[in-house]
């Protein structure tokens, strides 16, 4: 349809496409919404007649249970033991993934040498290896730490290799023309620019390390959260099972928080980036 020249054209102010910055206080409300709904639903379910009595504590009941466990079962020590296993395993796994990932991302030889093998190892379910590990390494700390390391190296490997490979070649070339090479190039240009993806890898590795810990601790442990969990299951102390699950969930939350802090510290340059 054509508009005749003498008709007035209707003008409008264009829709603003830019995302408006929201106030911080509201973002907290948004973040809390889903957890609050889940807590309320959980409480309602526990109180209702839908679940058999004594199989599910209320959220508050779980907190009380945690207090009892803290006093009677040395919860602090057990959490400490579990965290140490997760951390040592994670450090070994993530460091391995990072170094090999760096090598595979930087050089064709490195990729050819490692990629296929590591991809194959990834497909092995680490839980299947636990009985073998106990045979080989006994029931001490070694098999548990090894399971965590084995489960957590891969996200770090694949993200480090990918991050390094995706660094803008034009910037690398520019840096080379200014005489930056080898280690300095890695430190000043490649690693900082690959860091967002490396941190993604670290975050995934952390979460997987806790998953692997649950599996690794349930077999032949004398301490740790996994041990408490196995004991509670054996004696059908359902409230304790719930309390242990909550502890694992909180560890996952803590892992996410740590990555957030790292990102805020290392990735300042990405904040407030405007679309150009």
């Amino acid at each position, binding site marked *: 349809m054509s508009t005749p020249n003498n008709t007035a054209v209707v003008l409008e102010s264009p829709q603003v496409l830019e995302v408006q910055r929201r106030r911080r206080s509201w973002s907290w409300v948004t973040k809390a919404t889903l957890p609050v709904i889940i807590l309320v639903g959980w409480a309602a379910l526990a109180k209702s007649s839908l679940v058999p009595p004594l199989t599910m504590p209320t959220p508050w009941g779980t907190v009380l249970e945690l207090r009892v466990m803290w006093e009677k079962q040395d919860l602090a020590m057990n959490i400490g033991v579990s965290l140490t296993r997760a951390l040592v395993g994670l450090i070994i796994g993530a460091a391995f993934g990072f170094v090999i990932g760096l090598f595979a991302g930087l050089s064709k030889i490195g990729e050819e040498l490692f990629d296929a093998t590591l991809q194959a190892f990834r497909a092995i379910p680490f839980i299947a290896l636990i009985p073998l590990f106990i045979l080989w390494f006994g029931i001490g700390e070694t098999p548990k730490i090894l399971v965590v390391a084995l489960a957590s190296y891969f996200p770090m490997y694949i993200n480090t290799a990918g991050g390094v490979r995706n660094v803008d070649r034009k*910037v690398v070339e*520019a840096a080379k*023309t200014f005489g*930056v090479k080898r280690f300095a190039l890695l430190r000043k240009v490649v690693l*900082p620019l690959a860091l967002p993806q490396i941190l993604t890898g670290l975050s995934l590795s952390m979460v997987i390390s806790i998953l692997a810990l649950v599996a690794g601790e349930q077999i032949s442990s004398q301490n740790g959260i996994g041990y408490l969990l196995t004991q509670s299951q054996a004696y059908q102390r359902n409230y304790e099972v719930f309390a242990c699950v909550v502890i694992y969930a909180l560890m996952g939350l803590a892992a996410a928080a740590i990555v957030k802090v790292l990102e805020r510290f290392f990735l300042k340059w990405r904040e407030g980036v*405007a679309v150009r």
Partner: protein
Amino acid sequence: MTTTANVIVNGLSKSFGERRVLNDISLELRQGEFVALVGASGSGKTTLLRMLGGLSAPDQGEVLVPERRTFVFQEPRLVQSSRVWRNVVLGLDGVVGNKDVAFDMLNEVGLAGHENDWPSTLSGGEAQRVAIARALVRRPQLLLMDEPFGALDALTRMTMHALVARLCSVYQPTTLLVTHDVDEALFLADRVFVLRDGAIAHEVAITTPRPRTLRSDAHELRAEILSYLGVTRELLDGNAEPK
């Protein structure tokens, strides 16, 4: 100006697949000289520049350049994860005193106060000034620029021309500038090479005394260079239809 040669290119050839981009090129640049390289798209300007900077290898021929070479690309190519002043001293070794050097250089390109900014917050012209500061802070013996102002708006480009003219007269590097802009070449260069089909087809000396004005009076030279690039005098004077 001394007559010592600072850049010697001898019988240089380069092909990409079947396409011969540079065909037996020879040239010499004197120390401290500012040479502009003009030519149509695909005439081999950038290829020649990249070979002088050691960014690609020639198929045949010889390239002799001084050791301290720096590059200004069309895009700023800054390290986004480093603050502006760190980008400036990217190519300097050591740490001690680098910050002062960077601050001084940024002051000189008119970016005082932006030292601690992130590159992503700069405008196109500001980012390109950082790239120029990064190139000059190494006190280059040879400065290579590949259409450094091509992506900038006309107004910013004019202030950048004046800036580069001033900085080059202070630091006196031998400079090779690839450009499409004939007025830019007239304002900045001592000599203009016109590249066509992989060879230097014409060479024009710009003898206008310095400091020059942005409002160039060199109409004859301008018309001459433009005619080499396919813009005829008739077209320039508005008497002819483009073919």
